[in-house]
């Protein structure tokens, strides 16, 4: 038993709850939960037990903030619902921090399954997209967050742009298609021809889902790299109780196994020799860097002051052996 196996079990349970939750707790479980979940559990899935905060932010901008401001209301009145959602969001992040991405998010879990499928099909895996490419794509999640969650919905509320842009992120979010398809519902896998705007957004959404599926079989977590949820989680990472701590040693300079293990290509986890807090904006707190660190106590995952996992040579050896054996197994026979 290692951390990855535990995480995968948690992911399976979370996936069942997030996608099929009404079977466990009734039709309105989502109302009892939060509706501000820092993970992409989709509100369009009629069997979900909870749904993500991103749909709330977009609707609040479109239906609340803009109309109140347009009618001469105060900023406080206009932004109060959004502040409440931010508050609930931040409250949840205290407990799991960015681990919502790496342990709970159904779309993150699906992408990991896709990559496992790609491995088992024997497809050539791209271990890293390269430092240059990764650095260039990193701002995408912030741009997505600012424009798709706040700016366009606000402009739609003011009537500057069409109503189609009232919830633009949901229109293109792969989780909308994934979670509804997972419940046997095909109503989101569509091209909407009612207006030009809806048609363009629905084509982008379905195209993106297809792209994510094929790329995800060869590259780890492709959509997570541009996901606005990652950016939102980053804003509150300081308050989370889950910590990732690094005590750099000279040997770190020559090693780099942590960066190689990272599914998000965070090279800084390797190159940063100064900071102790190594939860970077792209980190999903999956813990693979700690698992694959061969030096004692260099990397540690903690819950508040309590250690969850510390880098350990003995653990590293077992983990590496298990990984090597796992990678040898394919659907077309074992690799030598």
């Amino acid at each position, binding site marked *: 038993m290692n951390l990855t196996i535990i995480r995968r079990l948690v992911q399976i349970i979370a996936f069942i709850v997030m996608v099929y939750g009404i079977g466990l707790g009734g039709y309105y479980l989502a109302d009892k939960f939060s509706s501000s979940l820092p993970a992409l559990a989709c509100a369009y899935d009629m069997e979900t037990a909870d749904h993500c905060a991103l749909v709330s932010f977009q609707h609040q901008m479109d239906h609340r903030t803009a109309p109140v401001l347009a009618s001469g209301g105060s900023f406080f009145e206009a932004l109060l619902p959004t502040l409440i959602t931010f508050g609930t969001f931040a409250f949840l992040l205290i407990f799991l921090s960015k681990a919502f991405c790496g342990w709970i998010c159904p779309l993150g879990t699906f992408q990991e399954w896709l990559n496992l499928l790609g491995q088992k099909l024997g497809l050539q895996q791209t271990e890293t997209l390269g430092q240059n490419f990764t650095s260039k794509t990193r701002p995408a999640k912030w741009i997505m967050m600012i424009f798709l969650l706040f700016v366009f919905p606000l402009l739609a509320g003011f009537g500057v742009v069409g109503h189609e842009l009232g919830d633009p992120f949901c229109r293109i979010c792969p989780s909308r298609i994934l979670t509804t398809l997972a419940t046997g519902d095909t109503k989101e896998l569509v091209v909407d021809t009612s207006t030009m705007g809806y048609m363009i957004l629905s084509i982008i959404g379905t195209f993106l889902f297809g792209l994510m599926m094929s790329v995800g079989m060869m590259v780890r977590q492709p959509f997570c790299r541009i996901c606005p949820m990652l950016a939102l989680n980053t804003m509150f990472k300081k308050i989370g109780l889950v910590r990732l701590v690094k005590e750099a040693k000279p040997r770190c300079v020559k090693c780099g196994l942590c960066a190689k293990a990272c599914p998000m290509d*965070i090279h800084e986890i390797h190159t940063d020799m100064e900071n102790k807090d190594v939860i970077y904006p792209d980190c999903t707190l999956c813990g693979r860097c700690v698992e694959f660190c061969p030096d004692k106590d260099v990397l540690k995952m903690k819950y508040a002051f309590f250690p969850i996992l510390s880098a350990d040579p003995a653990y590293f050896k077992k983990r590496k052996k298990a990984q090597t054996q796992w990678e040898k197994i394919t659907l077309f026979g074992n690799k030598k």
Partner: protein
Amino acid sequence: MQIKLKNIFLVILGVLGISHFCAAELLWSPKPIEKQKSVQQEQHAGHGQQGRREKAFYLQDQKNVTVNYIDPSLKVLPLSSADKSSKFILPDSGMDNYHALVAERKGEALHESSLRYVYMRGKPSGYSPDDLISNHKLPLEIVPQPMIREHWNFYTNNKHSFQVLFNEKPLADTWVILQTTNGSKFDAKTDVEGKVSFILPDDFKDVKPGRRANKPQEFLLRTVHIADNITYKTNFSSKYSVNPSHWQSNSGGVLALSIGFISGLVIMRRHNKNNPQKKKKKPVIKQSNGSQS
């Protein structure tokens, strides 16, 4: 035998004069009786200030009727029409989510009732809508199983289930009639759990592309039960909308997904061609202050 029982039931409904959204029936509607022919959209709840505007419903045949308005916390507020018209203005409970509008007329041999759920805007109530939906409100009651969520509608071509309860117990083998303002009429019988399902008919004429271009219409479920020489009549009404599948194409979605999938394969093939897997190489290390965008 089954056909005979059904006929008897339909005769009872006919005798009671409720063959087609008639004025004599106790029934909630979003518009006055005289405007029924062109049932307009129940005001969209909206959000913010718009969502809290006044809402009113009209009760056909309101003689000797008791009307109760139940909020999500199950607090019951008796309602009366201010100007003795059929119009009932719903007060602002300050709570978000479904509220129940219950009309009842109790006679010696006839008990009539009409039930409707209305979504009101306000602060989060802290109560699950399930509490209200499952709460016993009438001796004979049609309970949606489940009630649709916020932002969702009863759609044509979708299967929706209901349960018929008599004194809180499921009523098996009971006919339920579904009628729409578009003129469709169906009936079905409850199972042993008192449950019945209908696929709402795709009966809108001149469907235009887009949700907003097609005004919702009304559907009505009604049933009758006789016990202890009292005839119980009840109905449940709600709006229903055109299924978006009229302007949404699944085959188009599959096509766009397939193009995306193939594009991904092409991109990755090119990427792998330009970046062939290198043999083990020591990573290039650069000192970094750890900043990351």
